[in-house]
């Protein structure tokens, strides 16, 4: 055994994970800066840095007041909001695919999305019908907790149904997710039948996804749950590698499978519930991103989890850029863009993967 070869090999392995994460982070930063400059009001990178420096107390006025307002009140919060939502969707997609040992899983499968939609629906339609018109300022406060509650509730019902003799059975869990989603959608459908035009319009737009709603206040609320969940999920990468072999194999490799499973399902529900409550339903990011990472780099969850978090953010920035420039000054619903761009790409991935025997 040549130990110098061993060590250099080991270094290169570690380097790969570190290098890839850094590279992806830099790409995300570049994309972030680029995206800040795009829009109806001209903003260069130097003007952006001037505005930021000015806010920090270094006065060097070479920008206009309009530019400052556009950056600080519109573009910056929207982009940070987009990054957080993208991170939540990417990381939870990767973790759920890992725990279910199934590359076809996405956050919607455990009922989060439908549950959250039902929660939002209760606010938009249910409350307005029973209590009367709710002012928008109050609706902003009611929507997130209801959507989050709906998401978590649906997830726990799914988990309970999927539980048999103290163990979570994945096939039953996925079928339970389908059942719970269908039930939630049926209730929504019934409501839609009785909804008036205004309610319908509001709700439809919520289900299509909307990133323009990002404000500093909302960012303040979602940052901690999303970042904390992401960090904890990243630490579960090794356990997920073992679980990829099978649950009993993971158990015999020293993994507390039930605990890992519950933690991941809860954190994913939290992440996605919180994100979706403010942004509406944005499909495909959680499904597609982990696939791209796996095909491009490795299936090792120590790479897949962090890179899916960063990649989810990058993909959503790109999609948002597309959504707000293509029909400017108006914009396309983000959920429509991710689905419309994501589906053909996913089909392409499927055909490639099929040929290479990767799925």
């Amino acid at each position, binding site marked *: 055994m040549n130990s110098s070869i*061993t060590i250099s090999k080991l270094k290169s392995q570690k380097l790969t994970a570190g290098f890839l994460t850094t590279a992806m982070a830099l790409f995300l930063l570049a994309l972030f800066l680029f995206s800040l400059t795009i829009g109806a009001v001209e903003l260069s990178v130097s003007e952006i840095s001037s505005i930021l420096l000015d806010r920090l107390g270094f006065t060097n006025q070479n920008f206009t007041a309009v530019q400052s307002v556009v950056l600080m009140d519109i573009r910056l919060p929207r982009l940070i909001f987009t990054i957080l939502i993208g991170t939540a969707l990417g990381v939870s997609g990767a973790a759920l695919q890992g725990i279910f040992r199934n590359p076809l899983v996405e956050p919607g499968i455990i009922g989060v999305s439908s549950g959250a939609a039902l929660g939002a629906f209760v606010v938009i339609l249910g409350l307005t019908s029973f209590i009367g018109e709710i002012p928008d300022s109050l609706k902003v406060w009611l929507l997130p907790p209801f959507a989050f509650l709906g998401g978590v509730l649906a997830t726990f019902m799914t988990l309970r149904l999927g539980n048999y003799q103290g163990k979570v059975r994945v096939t039953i869990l996925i079928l339970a997710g389908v059942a719970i989603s269908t039930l939630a959608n049926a209730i929504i459908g019934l409501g839609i039948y009785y909804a008036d035009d205004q309610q319908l319009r509001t709700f439809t737009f919520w289900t299509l996804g909307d990133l323009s709603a990002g404000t500093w206040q909302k960012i303040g609320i979602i940052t901690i749950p999303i970042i904390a969940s992401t960090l904890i999920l990243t630490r579960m990468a090794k356990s997920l*590698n*073992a679980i990829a072999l099978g649950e009993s194999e993971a*158990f*015999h490799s*020293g993994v*507390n499978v039930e605990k890992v499973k519950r933690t991941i399902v809860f954190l994913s529900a939290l992440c996605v519930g919180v994100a979706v409550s403010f942004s509406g339903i944005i499909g495909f990011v959680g499904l597609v991103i982990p696939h791209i990472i796996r095909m491009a780099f490795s299936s090792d969850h120590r790479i897949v989890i962090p890179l899916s978090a960063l990649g989810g953010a990058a993909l959503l920035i790109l999609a948002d850029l597309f959504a707000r420039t293509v029909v400017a000054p108006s914009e396309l619903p983000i959920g429509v863009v991710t689905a419309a761009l994501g589906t053909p790409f996913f089909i392409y991935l499927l055909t490639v993967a099929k040929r290479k025997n990767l799925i």
Partner: protein
Amino acid sequence: MLQANNISYQIGSKSILRNCTIKLKPRTFTAIVGPNGAGKSTLLKAITNEVKLRNGSITVNGHSSSALDSKALSRIRAVMPQHTSINFPFSIEQIIEIGRFPHHTSPVENVEIIEKVIEKTRLQSYKGRTYQTLSGGEKQRVQLARIMAQVWDKSPHPKYLLLDEPTSDLDILHQHALLGTARELMSDNLGVLAVLHDLNLAAQYADYLVFMKNGEIVKQGETREVFTKENIETTFNHPVQMLEDPTTGQTIVVSIPNHMHLEPQKEIRYA
């Protein structure tokens, strides 16, 4: 010692295991044999805490296994499953590395151990290959390498390798390579238990044989004492003949095809 004391297991009202008692000792190769559906794999699952027992207990090196968590157990015993399928493309090194997860050894040591078990299982030419592209037999060798990596460290307490039909997909070369490697690993601190289908392989490698039928252990003991025509015929309900291999002097078993069924009393003559 890894010990199952009078264990029973049932699914609904159907009894799968009845009052099985079995002791695994270090430096001993134990093989479980028996007809299909006898409960061999279930006994292995019961010993490794994968199923909930109706009664009886499992003790691991003197501790009740229910008092130990999965991490502590995984440092004492490693289990090779019958089949392992993976839905994500992992390289064989990534699979083998999972065997090192229960341990707190440095990454450098882990890479060295992985190299060594790859050499032992003669998988050098498969490095970097994707697990999913391997044949059934190659997959079994990778799984053996993984559990070898898991029990590799020297330790003060005895450890156990448990193999569930490890040779089912292997040709004769690799059957002997795998079981030979398992025997080589045996030491004063390591014992092996394998569920085996091939009676002759079991007799060639095991020091101790356990015969199972209908969820019960019908006979167990030192191989040279229990590997007899009578035990095999009662366990499998099929006529056999015991012969002596002229080269090794070992007793081997030959099963008799139904269309050549001979009178039970009549001796068979072989040229």
